[in-house]
């Protein structure tokens, strides 16, 4: 990795960390995944035709698929409070009706392919095409997975809880 790239990587760490969190669903796993991602990035040359951020997402996502998902680390961490970082307050309010813990639990119900798409588009703000490039799938696949992810989370977070929707009314499907 060149000097410029390692400096860029350093600047990207908060963004990459957020992605790692979105994938793993816990800060303990997220920081572990982030560290492994950085190690991999520093030792693996960045292809000339890929942007560093997209490459970083890809490395992070592949590590998650290969190591965390397969080993059920994520699930273990979710259910083991000792693996959670003390400073993350799971009871923190994300909205007036929804806590961080509830969002994490809802995200954990998503299939991995939907979870990673939602993370890249909703959290990281990537376009469908950029997401498709990171995941090596057609952009149409991104569109359908994303819609299913949003629908599923809407159902869990707003409908099943009877949470008031953004208009202040009970939301309907």
């Amino acid at each position: 990795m060149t000097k410029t790239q390692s400096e860029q990587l350093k600047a990207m760490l908060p963004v990459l960390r957020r992605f790692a969190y979105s994938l793993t669903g816990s800060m303990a796993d997220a920081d572990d995944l982030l560290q492994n991602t950085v190690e991999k990035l520093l030792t693996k040359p960045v292809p000339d035709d890929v942007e560093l951020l997209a490459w970083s997402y890809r490395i992070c996502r592949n590590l998650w698929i290969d190591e965390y998902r397969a080993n059920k680390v994520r699930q273990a961490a979710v259910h083991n409070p000792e693996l959670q970082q003390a400073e993350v307050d799971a009871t923190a309010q994300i909205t007036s009706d929804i806590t961080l813990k509830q969002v994490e639990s809802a995200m954990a119900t998503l299939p991995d392919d939907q979870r990673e798409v939602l993370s890249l588009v909703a959290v990281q703000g990537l376009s469908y095409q950029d997401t498709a490039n990171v995941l090596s799938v057609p952009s149409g696949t991104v569109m359908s997975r994303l819609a299913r992810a949003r629908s599923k989370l809407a159902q869990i977070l707003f409908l099943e809880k009877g949470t008031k929707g953004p208009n202040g009314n009970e939301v309907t499907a």
Partner: protein
Amino acid sequence: MKITDEQLSAFLDNELDDEQMALVRDAIAADETLCDRMATLSMVDHVVKRAAEQATTGPVPEHIVARCDSASESNVVSFADRKAEQTAQQPTPNSDTRWLRGMAMAASVALVGLLGWQQLMGDQPGDAGQWQQIAAVLDSQTSGSRYSAGDVTVMPQLSFVHQDGALCRQFTVSGQSRNDAVIACKQDGSWQQRTLVPMTPTNGQAGEYQTATSAHELDKVLDTMIKGAPLNREQEQQAIQSNWQQ
């Protein structure tokens, strides 16, 4: 016409083609429930993003940031700067200044002597007795000055904490039979060599040594080892008092 969640979701992201965008826009205008549904889907994004931001508000762990720093070539420059600064801060006999600079510049990596974890004693050029004298200098002297160690002269140049936690020193050994830049670390009570760079005399000023490659290359090796900044004089003195044990 029924508008699906997939269409609404993509509309939300402005990812439909113009015709589809217009179609959904008209449908929303005609059906308030579609607007509510789109707001709900949008709220999912808001909640998920905010949760990720909330959970990651703390700083990125320092060791991960440091890993990026250590890999950055910019750190090689800053490392060299720090080394120069440290050398400048330490008392050095005027007559040795040019010589010291020559030795520092000579610290490059032609062979970078990636000799591994060899015990200096026995594996070093020179005999065990010579090494004991070198080790005595490393144990007892701060960086920046030359010290006689039998038939060689030893100059500690820099001290630092290795990423594995050991305290290490970069130093030069010069004499009739050898002129080397060496990095050794104190482990299990003895100094162990990590890197050795042979230096050859130049045709320039008497007493100057250099190798064919740049000093920055040795700094790259150092940057793969060093954790944090080099020790300052006070920290070196503390290390001497603790016999270089962490």
